[in-house]
């Protein structure tokens, strides 16, 4: 008898059921890769210690430091102390915890360190068909490889450390079919911002999204990661893209990817994962990539977004809208292009990979940022930093007047010393424009690396196609 057609999500989920879900109890789901960092794990290790438990699978656990860590070279490499005691304590605590429990840690001195969602793929640890979790909502990034990857809380970090499993209820599925193709100057970041604008910041709640269609197939892995990264900004439990030749080409030869005969066996398995013809999703949404423009947010969540050539909308009797505009210092209906900016941030797990840096450098080459603008370029990992320097990108950024830093989450979330000042406008390639996200009173405008670099040149919101 033929098995009924299944979605990519269903196949990965069912392969990891230790105990299936029942009416009364959630599934026990096995986790293939647990990524940990300094901010959301100390309290979980404390629970293990209190209860006399071990880390069950140290071979499936990998630690790094990214969120509270400084990005200034002298602080990263120990010539000067980490300025904030609290951050230094978290870093030290993770070192103690990993040493005590036998977990591999890519520490501050490691040339493999970086943002947790950048290094997993870069090392080849992120693979199709795996279940991947981390105490960070942007774990959805890894879904770009056809993994089921999602963020968890610290209590659940403790569950995975102790049992390598999680208690989970099965989410629903949402297919987002992206037809057509992106036009020049319109990037994966613009696509995902447009998707969030269309379905809303809770449009994916309770669902795992599968991004499908010709415009998704045409994306490279860095671009697919940008799209899946922001699935959580639509409220989704996870975002996934089916693995294909692009996926395999990216992974082949990476240090933690299977090698030799194991590689061939893995690819054979991965090829069974894509959604079967005729499989049914709980919901479907279709979007035409060919009509999209470069996008930019104007409000205080990522769903408040418009084309960079467009305007802030005008709405009446909407107190949430009024509050967002008051916070941002914008007027209803005002034109976005030409609005002045103070800070430009290129970085974060959304847009800090080599191709993102190349895109920004392409705009900045032979140009200088506008007077009065501060620009920070923060590569996603130490390996990306090195690769960018080998291409001379650092020299382009520095010549343009930007600062070139060590890897980390940096200005995305204002907890490591890199912050945006009160009332300042920050054009940022990160993922969240919530009030105060980049610093108390900071006003964040989310956009692509191209838009960020072009806007840095003019000191104003700029359509990057004017400079390409």
């Amino acid at each position, binding site marked *: 008898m033929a098995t009924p057609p299944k979605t990519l999500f269903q196949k990965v989920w069912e*392969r*990891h059921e*230790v*105990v299936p879900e029942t*009416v*009364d109890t*959630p599934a*026990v789901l*096995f986790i*293939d*890769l647990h990524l940990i960092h300094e901010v*959301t794990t*100390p*309290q979980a290790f404390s*629970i293990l210690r*209190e*209860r006399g438990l071990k880390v069950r699978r140290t071979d*499936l656990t990998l630690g790094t430091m990214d*969120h*509270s860590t400084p990005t200034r070279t002298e602080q990263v490499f120990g010539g000067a102390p980490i300025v904030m005691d*609290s*951050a230094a*304590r*978290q870093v030290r*605590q993770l070192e103690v915890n990993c040493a005590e429990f036998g977990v591999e840690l890519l520490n501050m001195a490691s040339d493999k360190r970086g943002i947790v969602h950048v290094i997993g793929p870069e090392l080849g640890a992120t693979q199709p068909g*795996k279940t991947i979790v981390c*105490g960070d*909502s942007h774990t959805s990034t890894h879904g770009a490889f056809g993994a089921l990857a999602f*963020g*968890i*809380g*610290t*209590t*659940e970090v403790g*569950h995975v450390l*102790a*049992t*390598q*499993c999680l*208690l989970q*209820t099965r989410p629903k599925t949402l297919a987002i079919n992206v037809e057509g193709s992106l036009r020049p100057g319109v990037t994966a970041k613009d696509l995902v911002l447009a998707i969030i604008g269309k379905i809303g*910041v*809770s449009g994916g*709640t*309770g669902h795992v999204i599968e991004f499908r269609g010709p415009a998704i197939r045409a994306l490279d892995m860095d671009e697919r990661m940008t799209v899946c990264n922001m699935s959580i900004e639509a*409220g989704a439990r996870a975002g996934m893209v089916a693995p294909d030749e692009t996926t395999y080409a990216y992974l082949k030869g990476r240090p933690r990817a299977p090698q030799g005969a194991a590689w061939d066996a893995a690819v054979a398995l991965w090829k069974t994962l894509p959604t079967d013809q005729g499989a049914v999703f709980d919901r479907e949404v279709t979007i035409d990539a060919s009509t999209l423009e470069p996008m930019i947010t104007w409000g205080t*969540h990522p769903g408040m977004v418009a084309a960079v050539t467009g305007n802030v909308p005008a709405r009446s009797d909407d*107190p*949430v809208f009024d509050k967002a505009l008051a916070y941002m210092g914008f007027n209803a209906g005002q034109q976005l292009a030409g609005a002045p900016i103070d800070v430009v941030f290129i970085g974060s797990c959304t847009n800090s990979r080599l191709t993102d840096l190349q895109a920004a450098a392409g705009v900045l080459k032979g140009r200088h940022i506008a007077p009065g603008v501060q620009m920070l370029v923060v590569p996603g990992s130490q390996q990306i930093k090195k690769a960018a320097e080998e291409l001379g990108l650092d020299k382009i950024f520095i010549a343009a007047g930007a600062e070139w830093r060590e890897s980390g989450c940096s200005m995305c*979330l*204002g*907890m490591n010393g890199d912050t945006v000042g*009160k009332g300042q406008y920050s054009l940022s390639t990160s993922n*969240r424009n*919530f*009030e*105060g*996200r980049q610093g*108390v*009173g900071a006003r964040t405008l989310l956009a692509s690396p191209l838009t960020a670099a072009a806007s840095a040149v003019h000191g104003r919101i700029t359509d990057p196609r004017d400079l390409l």
Partner: protein
Amino acid sequence: MKTIDAIRSITSRTVVLPRTDIDTDQIIPARFLRTTSREGLGAQLFSDWRYTADGKPNPDFVLNRPEASGCTVLVGGRNFGCGSSREHAPWALLDFGIRAVISSEFADIFRSNSLKNGLVPVVVDEPTLDWLLANPGMSVTIDIETNTLALPDGRSVKFPIEPFARYCLLHGVDQLGYLLASDAAITAYEQRHTV
């Protein structure tokens, strides 16, 4: 050892935050996450709304008003707890004294984190939420055993909660203990599953 206490019902006047999409960066900003403890985070709850730039309590913010004193039930707009997975958000709410949050929709990770700490997420329909948002300070009772929210006008509204989560709240079940008890099944799975 920190495990959650059993909860059967919560009765309180409500404190109301009439905003949609309240994200966890508002509930507790990231700069307060440089801690290795889960204690004492109530002081930083809604910090950027609760305090003025000079660190004084903002008298206009609802949690600083005298009528909010002693309230253990918070009502917030749709999509409460969106954004970051930080469990510091429910820790801060609980440390401040909030025991339940009522909204018409919760973000998935926030909801999961809340249930694991005994903070009850109560999902109601939009008309009920609108009524609660428009009528702050109403006395309500949240009954976990019958999953109902009792309103002061005598109405009783059912709210959805998974049977397992409800059982855990009612009996203070330690979910890590439950998982550890699945050890034989996990071992058997590990023997047939290669990563």
